[in-house]
């Protein structure tokens, strides 16, 4: 059950350091310049140091910043395991845009835990959701800098957001360091192409 109390509820899941906050900021600013009400919540503090991170953005919503369980319209997952970790926030048949290239937590590299097969994650998610999964790291590299992974992902989810593409592009221009504008715009375009219906 998605909510009609909000125009679009988005969950952004990832790992501290991947730039999830930046993505939510770009979307939030773009929404405000479109005249929408926006609410957003982010993970701070402890979780920033490479921990699991989840952010919420509610577009066209004047309520609280937390999205009720199982009701988000969509998810942007910067990392496969993190997609699975927070998928309960998304409504059935919601859109899940996911980077399928993993980041292993220290618990995995040190042998305490095992990391599931990313393809298996995709297969499971496809049962209940509309899933678009691809290697965003490769696209970010193609754009010229793997740090643009977050903007690749923003490009991919942008096809589903109730915000015009030009507005998002304008916000990217204003919000990334001037020297990196071209790389980021290329990253956005490459991401957008993966989901353009």
């Amino acid at each position, binding site marked *: *059950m998605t*909510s009609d*109390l909000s125009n679009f509820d988005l969950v952004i899941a990832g*790992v501290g*350091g991947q730039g999830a906050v930046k993505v*939510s*900021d770009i979307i*939030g*600013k773009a929404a*405000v310049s479109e005249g*929408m*009400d*926006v*609410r*957003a*919540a*982010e*993970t*701070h*503090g*402890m*979780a920033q*140091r*490479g*921990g*699991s991170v989840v952010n919420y953005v509610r577009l066209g919503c004047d*309520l*609280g*910043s*937390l999205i*009720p*369980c*199982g*009701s988000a319209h969509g998810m942007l997952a910067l990392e496969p*395991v*993190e997609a*699975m970790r927070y*998928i*309960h*926030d*998304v*409504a*059935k048949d919601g859109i899940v845009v996911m980077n399928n290239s993993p980041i*292993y*937590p*220290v*618990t*995995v*590299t*040190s*042998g305490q*835990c*095992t*990391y*599931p097969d990313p393809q*298996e994650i995709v297969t*499971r998610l496809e049962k*209940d*959701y509309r899933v678009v999964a691809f290697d965003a790291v490769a696209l970010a590299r193609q754009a010229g800098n*793997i740090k643009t992974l977050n903007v690749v992902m923003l490009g991919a989810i942008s096809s589903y957001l109730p915000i015009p593409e030009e507005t998002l592009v304008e916000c990217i221009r204003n919000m990334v360091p001037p020297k990196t504008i071209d790389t980021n715009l290329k990253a956005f375009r490459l991401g957008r192409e993966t989901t353009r219906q």
Partner: protein
Amino acid sequence: MSGREYMLGNVAIARGIVEGAVDVVSGYPGTPSSEIVDTLASMKERDFYIEWSVNEKVAMEVASGASMAGARSVVTMKHVGLNVAADPLMTLAYMGVKGGMVIIVADDPSCHSSQNEQDTRRYSVFSQIPCLEPSTPQQAKDMIPYAFELSEKYEIPVIFRSTTRISHGKSDIELAPVSQKTGEIKFEKNPDRWVMVPKNARVRHPHLLSIQQDIRGELEVSGWNELSIEAESTVGIIACGTAAVYAKEALERLGITASFLKIGTYPIPEDSVRQLLAKTEQVIVIEELEPVIEDQCKVIARDVEFETEIFGKADGLLPRTGEFNVDICMEGIAKAFGIDSCECKPANQDMELPVRPPAMCAGCSHRGTFHVMKKVFGEDAVFPSDIGCYTLGIQHGTVDTTLCMGASISVASGIYDAGEKKPICCTIGDSTFFHTGINSLMNAIYNKSDITVLILDNRTTAMTGHQPNPGMGKTATREPTVEVAFDRLCSAMGAEFVEVVDPYDMAATEDVLERAKAYKGVSVVIAKRACVISAAREGIRYTPFMVDTDLCKGCRKCLKFGCPAIEFDEVSKKASINSMCSGCGLCIEICTFNAIMEVKK
């Protein structure tokens, strides 16, 4: 400047402080409160004074002094910080203020980054200082200028309680114009007011009690409390803070019509509570953490003999711990009023996922220090620690205790005093040492503990967002100032073994720690190396390291070191180093096969 902007709750609070024409701001960093001072300190143009103080007590006293001189002042901290500042707080309530003073405290339901979940509203009841509580970032901004006015009108400080979801929530915010400064800054002698000797305190206590009713009356009609009575409905909701917003959404989702009282002030609006109770048969009180409002509502109901059933935490319909959300509110409301809860159940997800705890950064010097410390003192030694990035060393087995800011040294002393025979080596960060570690060290030296104190000086307050401290030689606004020298400070307190070492130099660190361990008495070692994040921001770059796959035997020893840049390739059964590597070089020493080396240019 006016218009609409998208901002973080703490940035909105900072804006409210500016709109309220503040003169002096002080604070001590602590998540979720830190961005308020950070935002104000980074403003290019500013017509007020701002500082990071060494702890919350000091910060509170600075703000009080400013206010005695007629200035509008703000002090910021997190909930546990108010414990440190509780001493001045309680007497400040008697003494009162002249210029408006706002005490901003950010609570952290669910301990997202805290060691407990205490509720600041209890301090408001305890000290009889009024408290304002916003339910959205917009309200948070709008409340601050009002808080100054309220404070000046009754000459009493005002507590402003935020929570994580306000402070770290983002929202579109409608800005208002900045007010003109009005107050004249001038300290007027008035010993009856400013000197709290018993004779004066005995006069001020009844005074404090006498203004409570007026304050309550004023807050009742202030607009921060909203009452809407639904004539058709026999049920009601009383809620405050972000919980009020969740409760509203929960009602809409459940399709229930209920009378609603949103409370934003303490003392609470008793007349409104009475009106609601008179019109309803069942009421649920929804508030995060402590049942402050719930208890008061029950007292009011008993006093006027209302029959209304009051639900909340006492009957377990709502939890007393953790953070609220719409789902928790829906469930509580549904149970209280005997209706069906929601049908939205999340899809099944039973896959086992690896945990992903936060870890110290790639290249963090603490990792090297901890590694050597464990080697020298042995895994069985006792390692009391403190609050900061280095608490993440818990995964390395180098953090045995964490009580509160500054406690590592005193806890270490206590363990020694108890008669523990194992070696004791405690760790404390630079900012934490200035906060309250100094007192503990002085005590340990004076009382002849036999412990090693490792001051992890990473040249910043990293965990909360890299705020400057007195060891950095920079103020909050990044102006140069004196740099407090740890070694000389420790020597001045009577420490005889004091050495400074670079933790990137593991051999030298090992040597110093060996001698510190052998030393009888308090030995102090200062491991000094800038946090990799601040170093990177300053443009310092090192050559990254790599694994020579021919030499790597796949023993996984380097993986145990816990650097996020070191990975293991399950196919080739060899270690590898990824792009996160900051080039600290600490891992070369770990590999017994010399397979780790600098990337050749």
